[in-house]
């Protein structure tokens, strides 16, 4: 009888349990790292039809975001500028440059420029730019240092936990409304002092402007 199960089989349950634990842990870790927008959305940098550079226009030339995204403080959607906005300057600057051929054609024939959209939230999420921008939430909180990117890429996950982290504690992110499009702006060049001022002024702004901490489901799913 004793020959049916050799001695080592006594270890079998333990070995199986160990393998299962390791495999389970590995799968959990894999899902936690890879099945989140932090992995599959952050870093998305599509090739655009025109090699337009925010580093040149917003960084070097210092154009305000609202020169082009002129609806960002008026409506829920931050518009992509029309070709005529580009032609305000490019009717003189780089007038015959081949890189701008699509823009010139779009401006004369009214054809759309096929820009590739980068940031997008699911359709069951209600998002509104003007609410945030007019309450002192800077572009940099959700888009990163766009003014230092040659080609725009997604810098923040825009996941639900990302939105909620700020909605739970807006005081940690709020800044003076006129500094919203100044992406490199800080309270102070010394990080410790800046953090202190953020704490004091953030709490003050939230109180003075009666900023709500929106956490109910119906705030964003309506």
């Amino acid at each position: 009888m004793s020959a049916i199960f050799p001695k080592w089989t006594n270890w079998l349950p333990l070995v199986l349990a160990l393998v299962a634990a390791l495999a389970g842990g590995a799968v959990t870790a894999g899902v936690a790292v890879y099945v989140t927008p932090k992995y599959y959305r952050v870093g998305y940098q599509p090739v655009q039809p025109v090699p337009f550079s925010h580093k040149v226009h917003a960084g070097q030339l210092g154009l305000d975001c609202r020169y082009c995204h002129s609806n960002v403080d008026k409506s829920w959607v931050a518009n992509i500028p029309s070709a005529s906005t580009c032609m305000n300057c490019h009717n003189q600057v780089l007038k015959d440059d081949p890189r701008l051929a699509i823009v010139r054609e779009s401006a004369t024939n009214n054809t759309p420029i096929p820009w590739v959209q980068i940031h997008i939230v699911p359709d069951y999420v209600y998002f509104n730019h003007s609410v945030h921008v007019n309450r002192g939430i800077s572009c940099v909180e959700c888009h990163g240092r766009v003014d230092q990117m040659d080609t725009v890429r997604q810098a923040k996950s825009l996941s639900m936990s990302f939105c909620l982290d700020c909605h739970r504690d807006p005081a940690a992110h709020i800044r003076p409304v006129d500094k919203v499009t100044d992406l490199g702006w800080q309270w102070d060049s010394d990080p410790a002092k800046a953090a202190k001022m953020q704490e004091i002024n953030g709490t003050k702004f939230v109180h003075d402007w009666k900023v709500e901490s929106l956490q109910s489901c119906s705030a964003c799913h309506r």
Partner: protein
Amino acid sequence: MRYAISILLIGAFIGGAVVGMLGLPGRISSQPPVEIYSDRYFPGMDRQPKLRPQKPFEFFANGVSSQLPPPGTVARSPGVATLSGVVHRFEDNPFNTGMVTGSTNFIDVNPMPMTQALLERGRQRFDIYCAPCHGRLGDGNGITKAIGDMPAVANLHDARIISMPDGEIFNTVTHGKGLMGAYGPIVPAEDRWAVIAYLRALQLSDLGTTNDLDASQQALLNHTP
């Protein structure tokens, strides 16, 4: 023991292969991100059959979702308070055209009530929409002169522009003129008037002399320590 080691090795190999193939979070990729709730398996979840602005849409002849309103459409909005009462955006009114109603004569004076808030708004909008070319001082030395080599930008302190009626400047800003593009489509009328009010303040500051200061300020100026 041997089994344990080989299982660990195989595990490490699979783990390494996964990380090698998928990369670490934050890697740059030009591939469109996967949609977890893809339309194929969860129809109507992430992407619902509704239109978003500025998206491709075959239904219309020009292939985009954002259409121009049909001719003659009137936008409904509360209207703007001007010196001559509330004006709506569709009215043939100097506020919307810069011209005396029913003629092509430019109005001389800004139709908005002059307030500190209007001038502040004007400064902010001037710095966004005009300063890149005309410079923050309005002297025509914006950044596009230094970097873009744009020579033809007007100096807004020119005597001709100082004596120009407000309505004519409004018309220039709205429809563009010569090499300058139209700002009517991106700057609403009340903001254009605010910009013009601020531009007048800029011109005045440039024309000012020490005689404009009151006695105490002049005394301060002539004071030699």
